[in-house]
């Protein structure tokens, strides 16, 4: 294998795939990147055996071949070279020589056939979704995914694709995010897949809203998304996602329309003196006023009032302030709609205009 490439051309696919490499591997070869050079392109692949990222770049190849080299070291080498450097790469015996100007590296290698590749998807159905649409839906929901929860099916994002509709749902049991959007795609049969957390995070990094359509292929256990020169292939979570419709409240009888920025400021101020461990704040709604208060074990207190257009029954409900702030950050309209019932019932938060995005937050007993 032998080729010559400009630093920036090399770095782009490297940075695209490096996220798949774990710091600690189950197999040594998974700490490596697979480099494959054919006639006119270089393809780089990284994997953690659950998720595989592949990215290609056009480059003139002097000699074809395939080999694996330590992933982080190769990325660090490319990063450290001066901008616009020309990098010469050549496999020589069992070492990969990387040369640029007066800098020379010899990297250890492992054979390409040791690198575990995912098999091509069987019985997959394939649709096209605009990257813009997909990235918005992921951005609106991904923050609510669970992390290392016992309920393993929550450690990911539910994607449902039925006729001309893409639906993303994420929940960690304390809060839930739901977002649906229109797509041109019409799958043969409705798709319902739980995409693992790490895959979702990599995906949101890779999606390019201006990059046109992404090709999404799904089989029973695998997902493959092709975005331009890059391909993400991932195992799916084999589990049953809870019935989210059941927990989206429909009986909230106290509706508030709140200025998102003002509410955010109020919550942020109250958050300063909430308990660091529980992050609880109290929301009290009364005639024309919303009072947000907090206190902590040091017996410090914060109270912040917000004028509101409300004249219904009063109520007092506790929430983890982080969950409220996360939602306000994800909403992109000037005002947010907040629907409450009582101190034991979940709150529903929506953008001002659409009900295609919904956020459910369970209260906290304070």
């Amino acid at each position, binding site marked *: 294998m032998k080729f010559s490439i400009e630093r920036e051309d090399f770095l782009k696919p490297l940075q695209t795939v490096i996220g798949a490499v774990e710091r600690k591997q189950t197999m040594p070869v998974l700490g490596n990147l697979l480099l494959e050079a054919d006639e006119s392109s270089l393809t780089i692949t990284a994997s953690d055996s659950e998720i595989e990222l592949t990215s290609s770049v056009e480059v003139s190849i002097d000699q074809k071949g395939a080999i694996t080299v330590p992933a982080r070291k190769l990325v660090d080498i490319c990063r450290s070279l001066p901008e616009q450097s020309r990098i010469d790469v050549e496999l020589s015996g069992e070492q990969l020589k990387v040369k640029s100007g007066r800098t020379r590296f010899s990297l250890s290698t492992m054979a390409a056939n040791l690198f575990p590749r995912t098999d091509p998807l069987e019985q997959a159905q394939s649709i096209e979704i605009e990257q813009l649409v997909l990235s918005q839906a992921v951005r609106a929901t991904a923050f609510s995914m669970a992390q290392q929860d016992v309920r393993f099916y929550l450690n990911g994002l539910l994607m449902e694709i039925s006729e001309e509709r893409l639906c993303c749902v994420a929940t960690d049991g304390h809060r839930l995010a739901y977002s649906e959007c229109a797509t041109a795609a019409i799958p043969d049969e409705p798709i319902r897949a739980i995409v693992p957390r790490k895959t979702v995070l990599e995906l949101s990094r890779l999606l390019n809203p201006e990059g046109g359509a992404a090709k999404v292929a799904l089989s029973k256990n695998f997902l493959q998304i092709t975005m331009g020169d890059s391909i993400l292939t991932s195992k799916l979570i084999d589990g049953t996602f809870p019935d989210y419709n059941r927990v989206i409240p429909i009986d909230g009888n106290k509706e508030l329309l709140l200025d998102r920025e003002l509410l955010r400021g109020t919550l942020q101020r109250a958050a300063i003196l909430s308990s660091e461990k529980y992050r609880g704040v109290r929301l009290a709604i009364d005639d024309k006023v919303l009072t947000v208060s907090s206190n902590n074990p040091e017996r410090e207190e914060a109270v912040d009032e917000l004028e509101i257009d409300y004249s219904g029954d009063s109520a007092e409900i506790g929430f983890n302030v982080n969950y409220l702030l996360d939602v306000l950050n994800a909403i992109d309209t000037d005002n947010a709609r907040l629907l409450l019932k009582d101190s034991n019932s979940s709150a529903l938060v929506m953008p001002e205009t659409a009900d295609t995005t919904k956020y459910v937050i369970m209260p*906290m007993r304070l």
Partner: protein
Amino acid sequence: MSTDCNWPNIIVHADLDAFYASAEILDNPKLAELPLVVGPRSNRGVVLTANYIARRYGVHSAMPMAEALQRCPDLIAVPPRFERYQELSRLMMGVFHNYSPNVEAISLDEAFLDCTGATALLGDPGTIGKSIRKEVAEHTGGLSVSVGISSTKFVAKVASGYCKPDGLTIVSPEEAVEWLDPMPVSTLWGAGPKTTRRFEQIGLYTIGDVRRADSEWLSRMLGNQAINFQRLSNAQDIREVSSGRLSRSMGSDRTLNRDVSSKHELAEHLRRSAERLGSRLRRKSLLAGGVRVRLKTSRFELLTRQLALPQPTDVTDILWQTAVGLLNRFEEGKTYRLVGLAVFDMQPSDAPIQKDLFNDNGGDNGKLDRVIDAVEEKYGTGSLIRASRLGDKSAVIDQSVTLDSTDETLSDEN
């Protein structure tokens, strides 16, 4: 009586000497002159406590009984009577409460007392120490307690161990640094065998060495623990005596009379442990945030699996079911000699609780637990058992020794 003591704090650490063994001798004075351990009589258990005569043979707590018998063939092994130890412990803690409103019980046989500002009432530290020791002996019928007094918890604790058994050591704040200097690094709180080895590798053998070491260099060598160790070496310890402090974990381990491999039997042992832990949690008004199962293989390999609960709980059945679920995460086909269950990440039961979208916790089980607690409170532990256990013929379960533990190492949470 001197009242011109100008210490910033007066912290007392009191520790019963060889508690379980001393308690047995108290009730059966004939044992006093013999090498004695408390622990299951079978070859399979571990030593819970050894008296000072047995210790001369190199027998110590946590040593396998078989090894202890090898070292000292005349060893007398007495099975533990935890109810009796609890009773004695209560008597001792009662004495402590006469000396301070702020008593932090570390375990059955050990406590910190904050006697700051009480010199006018109680006398100087020396007087306080002598009178605590005398009163504990009187109230318990003769148990000896070693006492260390200084102005920080760390120094007080080192002091009480300094002239064990039956000793009293007082270290004034002025002399504390000099007094600590020659002690081995392993004396430092938080320095286990690993850290001690690390200290020695970098040429630090005494507390004085640690105190004099360059802080930046020490941080590079030991990471963020360094500051803490250097603080302790300077006899500084910001930890207060706090009676309401939360323990970090609570455990109930059972060393089995014979090796067990079937999941069903392991699950039964876990049930017993879950019942004990559940009732301890409820008694202390605590909820557990996580469950940990520990199994020791017949080859003394210690395996651990743990899980955070979606919602904190004190419900026995949830603890048990979570533990049984964890059993699936152990490799199959091994045989085990010890089954342990622990709960961790505890919080007061009136602390804020984040409600869950999918989980309606508790319900009737919580009620059942409270009824069982009430019956056992009145008629004694074990007076009520689950019908599912009636058919259980493995008498093993009842002979296995349960060792309850509470780990109260410092937790930063309120």
